[in-house]
């Protein structure tokens, strides 16, 4: 389906493909192509692949939440089912079916689409709470089935396959992580482009209209249910693509690909990034994967930090990181962005210090309480100390207090600078 819009783009009027509209894509492509030359280890590549998959998944989720106004607690179902089917097809390839690996995401996407079509037929009748609850119920149901239907889902071990058994594509067999990276990036760019273009189609725009005011849209000739259903199917397709990419990368799918935790975390990813912006989920996916894998290497408390970040985000900047960036469009347009640099720089040091020292307090407390028994030595930010005493705690608290005090002292200045930068006439 979305392939159609792609051909339209290339076949369509060329003059509308302007330099400014293709620049970001070209830049992204170049950037992604160069990344493996900087990060060569296969674990770095794996993490980048993971990011790419999360980006596709989060973008597909935002087709629902951000663009269609549907809050889903069960989106992992479509990614997971797409992935499971892709994995089964991968195993069929091993048994002789002819299908080059790069085409596998289409298979997964179609199955994601199929299930979105079936489930969407009743879940999209209403938006809001009812939709959210049905998505939760379906999510729980499929996740529970995955343990019962062992033949298909492989039970708790999941099912695995070998991506290298397909026909070689231009001599590549996808043995190395690097080859897989380029395959993933190809699909990342393609899927992102297609989803972006989808938001520019009549149905994409009407999805926004239905999100804003479903009743008004009905009086313009649109069935709100059909609009949601179509968005839902499209979203299911791309979730299935993400699932297939997962299958290709990790060569295993398990119950965790379907369960509520995965569905919940994609909500978190998308929201942190910013649901109101196309790039929001991309930012969210990068930040989240980074925090999860890299922060996870350094602290057991990563989930706590993530939770704090999420709740803080909902409370204080509900438009997410993308929203924070977009806030600066007006100062930029007024040419007054430079007014903000100095106050930002001034507050950066105390702000970072306060975050780090608050985290230090948590870490020390946690270590005191749950550290491996008898292991009193603790290393934090490269400093090694004994966590049994109160010295370190008092010190961290003192640093936190001072830096927080500084941050609050600087707040009025920032606010003033912000107001100033946002008003065309203020300078005069």
């Amino acid at each position, binding site marked *: 389906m979305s392939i159609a819009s792609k051909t339209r783009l290339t076949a369509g009027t060329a003059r509308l493909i302007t330099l400014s509209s293709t620049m970001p894509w070209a830049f992204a492509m170049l950037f992604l192509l160069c990344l493996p030359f900087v990060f060569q280890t*296969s674990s770095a590549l794996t993490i980048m692949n993971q990011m790419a998959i999360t980006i596709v998944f989060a973008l597909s989720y935002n087709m629902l939440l951000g663009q269609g106004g549907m809050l889903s607690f069960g989106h992992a179902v479509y990614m997971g089912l797409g992935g499971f089917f892709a994995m089964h097809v991968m195993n069929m390839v091993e048994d002789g079916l002819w299908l080059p690996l790069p085409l596998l995401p289409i298979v997964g996407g179609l199955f994601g689409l199929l299930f979105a079509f079936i489930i969407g037929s009743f879940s999209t009748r209403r938006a809001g709470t009812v939709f959210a609850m049905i998505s939760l119920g379906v999510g729980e149901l499929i996740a*529970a089935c995955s343990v019962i239907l062992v033949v298909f889902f492989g039970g*708790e071990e999941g099912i695995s396959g070998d991506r290298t058994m397909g026909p070689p594509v231009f001599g590549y067999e996808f043995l190395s992580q690097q080859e897989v990276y380029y395959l993933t990036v190809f699909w990342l760019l393609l899927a992102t482009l297609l989803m972006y273009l989808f938001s520019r189609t009549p149905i994409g725009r009407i999805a926004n209209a239905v999100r804003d005011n479903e009743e008004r849209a009905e009086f313009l000739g649109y069935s709100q249910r059909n609009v949601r259903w179509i968005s839902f199917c499209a979203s299911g397709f791309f979730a299935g693509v993400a699932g297939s990419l997962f299958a290709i990368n990790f060569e295993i799918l*398990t119950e965790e690909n379907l369960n509520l935790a995965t569905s919940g975390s994609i909500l978190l990813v998308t929201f942190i990034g910013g649901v109101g912006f196309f790039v929001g989920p991309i930012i969210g996916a990068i930040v989240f994967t980074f925090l999860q894998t890299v922060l*996870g*290497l350094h602290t*057991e408390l990563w*989930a706590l930090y993530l939770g704090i970040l999420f709740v803080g985000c909902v409370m204080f900047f509900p438009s997410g990181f993308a929203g924070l960036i977009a806030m600066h469009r007006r100062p930029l347009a007024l040419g007054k962005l430079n007014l903000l640099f100095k106050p930002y720089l001034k507050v950066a040091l105390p702000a970072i210090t306060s975050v780090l020292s608050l985290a230090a307090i948590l870490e020390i407390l946690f270590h005191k309480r749950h550290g491996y028994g008898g292991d009193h030595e603790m290393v934090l930010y490269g400093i090694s100390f004994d966590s049994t005493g109160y010295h370190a705690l008092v010190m961290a608290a003192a640093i936190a207090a001072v830096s927080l005090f500084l941050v609050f002292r600087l707040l009025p200045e920032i606010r003033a600078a912000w107001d100033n930068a946002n008003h065309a006439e203020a300078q005069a």
Partner: protein
Amino acid sequence: MKRLNFMMATALAAGLIAGAAAAQEKVRIAFIDPLSGPFATTGTQGLSIYRHTIKELVNEPGALLDGQAEFEMVPFDNKISAKESLIQLQVAMDQGIRIIAQGASSGVASALTEAVAKHNRRNPDDPVIFLNHSAVDPALTNDKCQFWHFRFDANADIKMDALTDDIAANPEIKKVYVIGQDYSFGKAVASAAQRFLKEKRPDIEIVGNELHPIGKVKDFTPYARKIVGSGADAVITGNWGGDMVGLGKAVMGAGFDKPIYTYYGATSGITAAFGEEGDGIVKLVGAGQVNPAPSPDAQAFIESFYESFPDLDLGQPQMANVAPMLAAAINEVGNASDIKAIAYALEGMEHDGILTGKTVMRESDHQAIQTVTVQGQTPGVTFEYDKSGRGMNAQTIVEMASKDSATTCEMKRP
């Protein structure tokens, strides 16, 4: 991304140091188990046992390459997720680590053993070895067996063999109820129970054989009612974690006062949760023993463990074999970098396990054969679990358990 750069740098630096062959070579072992989330206790406990064993039995006595080298455990948190485990495996390999240890969850173990096999097939010159310290799904050393995987724990079948010995010796048991979690391990336990009971005590009636959804049952009372209602004289279960606590408490709460045979019915808060009610009722089958300590050496070893880790339990005695056996293999090869040779050296190795008696790494399927015990929850033991005033005491001791058991493994050696 900066962090990744840093990681690369450290990996590089580590490589350089290794290349310089310093006097104190560090042989690093990646410990990939849950260190956060609901199963963090299991992972933390395992890591502590490793660290203690390495310190007491390898590094301090200078048992690795005549004291020229030392073991170091590098923990990686897999959050008990297959996907995370594969990522952590990559990270570990990027850091130059070629020895992987894992144990919590057979599902993760099966993902890892496949990933390791795939990696070794794709990179035959740079293999990785996988030391499984407690994932007991029999398939790992049967249908899914492969050269690079070594299991140090007794598998579910071996444990069931010992467990049914204990049942067979008790003439009062006429009816048995088997209940477990609905996944590969639970099913393996159930079929093994049927097989061995039929063989050893054909007169015993299996009055219930049931699988319940894993981690989804809020209240085990209806199951407990069925068990009591069936008139069973003993319960066999492979449940672990919350499912073990829930089942145990419900069954005992419904008035059941006969033996409950478990695989994982102790430590990690379970012994404390059962408390007095479980004394004399809860049985545990496992490799090796801590109560009573099998030897004075073992006594000292366990004592020093509890000194170093007062908040944890020595819950998995077989884990104390991994580091010494690996050290012996490395000593035999003469270096720690020829992974293939080390793997060959581990095959068929005999070892005097500090807590598990005579231990052999069986060549045919890489399954460790060792002492398996059936233990009972007893108050006032020397080494208590969960600081609850009670612990597990060995009752039936089977040396070299199931040493001739059959395997379907067709090992392909490189």
